[in-house]
């Protein structure tokens, strides 16, 4: 059996799309998100487990995980 | 010709500006004046800019839309940018103090910048009464209606149980203006 290595992904937000509904905050299992000034804020980026639940349920596509750019291409 | 004042209230969807417009118009009617209230909204406006219009007059009101606003209240930057052009030269511009404007704006209009939203959120702990705070400020600056009519109109429209809160909001609004008109304060 192959074990897939979970690639570390970066959590990104698009402030102009976020409407501050708080869904991502409520359903983040590690509670690293918060609403500030009606917009999502990543409070503890380093604790993110890349579970993707915020991305999956954000009605506005305003928070998502992005593959880390390959260093050699950087 | 009869006295007429045209007021435009601009902000974002949930700020209760249409209610504010209704209250203002009803206050005018309470004291025997003529008044209309109009609005524009749209599906696009859901998250976006929303406006309410009030015209108060001693006589007939023919065209029931604001043409050259005597007063513009803006609670958001977007609304300010969008509706500024409809304010007449030297008209009264009432702004929430979170809004930035260009220096020329000060030249063209009588600008009053006051912390409406902050007053509602911090002093009154309820952002939803920002509209009432704003109404009070408009009243003080325009004298379009009396304090009594305004209060009566407010109390007629707000949800039961929130009367005290709304009375306080009016007081805070009145005060915001007194503070600026009384610079010693």
């Amino acid at each position, binding site marked *: 059996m192959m074990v897939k290595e979970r690639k570390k992904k970066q959590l*990104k937000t*698009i402030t*102009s*799309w976020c*409407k*501050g*509904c*708080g*869904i991502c905050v*409520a*359903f983040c299992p590690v509670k690293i998100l918060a609403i500030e000034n009606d917009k999502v804020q990543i409070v503890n980026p380093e604790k993110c487990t890349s579970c993707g639940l915020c*991305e*999956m*349920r*954000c*009605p*506005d*596509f*305003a928070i*998502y*995980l*992005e593959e880390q750019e390959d260093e050699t291409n950087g | 010709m009869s006295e007429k004042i045209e007021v435009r209230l601009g902000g974002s969807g949930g700020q209760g500006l249409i209610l504010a417009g209704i209250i203002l118009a009803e206050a005018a009617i309470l004291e025997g004046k003529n008044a209309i209230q109009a609005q524009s909204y749209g*599906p*696009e406006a*859901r*998250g976006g800019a929303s406006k309410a219009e009030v015209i108060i007059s001693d006589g007939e009101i023919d065209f029931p839309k604001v043409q050259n606003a005597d007063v513009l209240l803006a609670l958001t930057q977007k609304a300010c940018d969008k509706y500024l052009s409809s304010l007449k030269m030297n008209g009264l511009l009432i702004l929430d103090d979170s809004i930035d404007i260009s220096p020329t704006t000060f030249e063209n209009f009588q600008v009053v910048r006051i912390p409406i939203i902050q007053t509602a959120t911090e002093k009154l702990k309820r952002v939803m009464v920002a509209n009432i705070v704003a109404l009070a400020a408009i009243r003080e600056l325009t004298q379009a209606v009396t304090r009594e009519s305004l209060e009566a109109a407010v109390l007629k429209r707000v949800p039961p149980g929130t009367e005290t809160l709304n009375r306080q909001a009016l007081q805070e609004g009145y005060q915001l203006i007194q503070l600026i008109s009384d610079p010693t304060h």
Partner: protein
Amino acid sequence: MSQGSQLIQDNFRSHRLPHIWCPGCGHGVIMRGVAQAIENLKLDKTKVCVVSGIGCSSRATGYMNFNTLHTTHGRALAFATGVKLARPELEVIVITGDGDCTAIGGNHLIHSARRNIDITTIVFNNKIYGMTGGQSSPATPYHEKGTTAPYGTIDPDFDICKLSTGAGATYVARSTAYHVPQLIKYIQTGIAHKGFAMIEAVSGCPTYYGRKNKKGNAVDLMNYYKENAIDIKMADKLPPEKKEDKFFIGEFTREEKPEYVSEYQKIIDNLQKELTDHE
């Protein structure tokens, strides 16, 4: 120019975002789910056609980067039937609201189901008319309120899944804006299914439904679905008291039956065979 995750960039007209829906509206979650399902199936995107009616939900077509058709209120399935029959190679998906689909559009729903035409319908069911400001819909739960039902509805709500099955749909499933992985799976299965597929996606309208019925904000609605949806596979295993006031999600119907457009093609083929045979 394009912004957002790869999924969004690849499937949406991202320059048109953010969409017009209210903060926390479940429609965004479901629309993303539709795109994810299309992505997962690796469909040829130039052959995907998404058709909608009128309503908040139906605005989805304006954002999704496929052949998109935003029609008249209630008629999405009728337009879609024309598109599909005229060009069977297209993968036709209908996005509709509970009002659009089961009020004014109810007849087209039952007839599309009866024909078993190969169209996948996703009903964004927020149990109310969102676009027009919170009137009750045929999906508004019994005794709940809308602006046109100020004393609570007295007409029972449709079970959209049962209605579709009763009319002849061959794939029928339900999920919610909370249960996204299932939702995506059902939409995928529905699209892959040859015949009429109905996926009811329970959505949240915090602005009207939530407010009118004191169900709270977007997060509360999500939590409500989380806690009250029971997988149909568990239906028999749970004691009755655990099922009270709950609703079921899952796949309700899945069967293979002759599909309309293919059956029509057979008529054409037969006639053309007859013609050649006679030569």
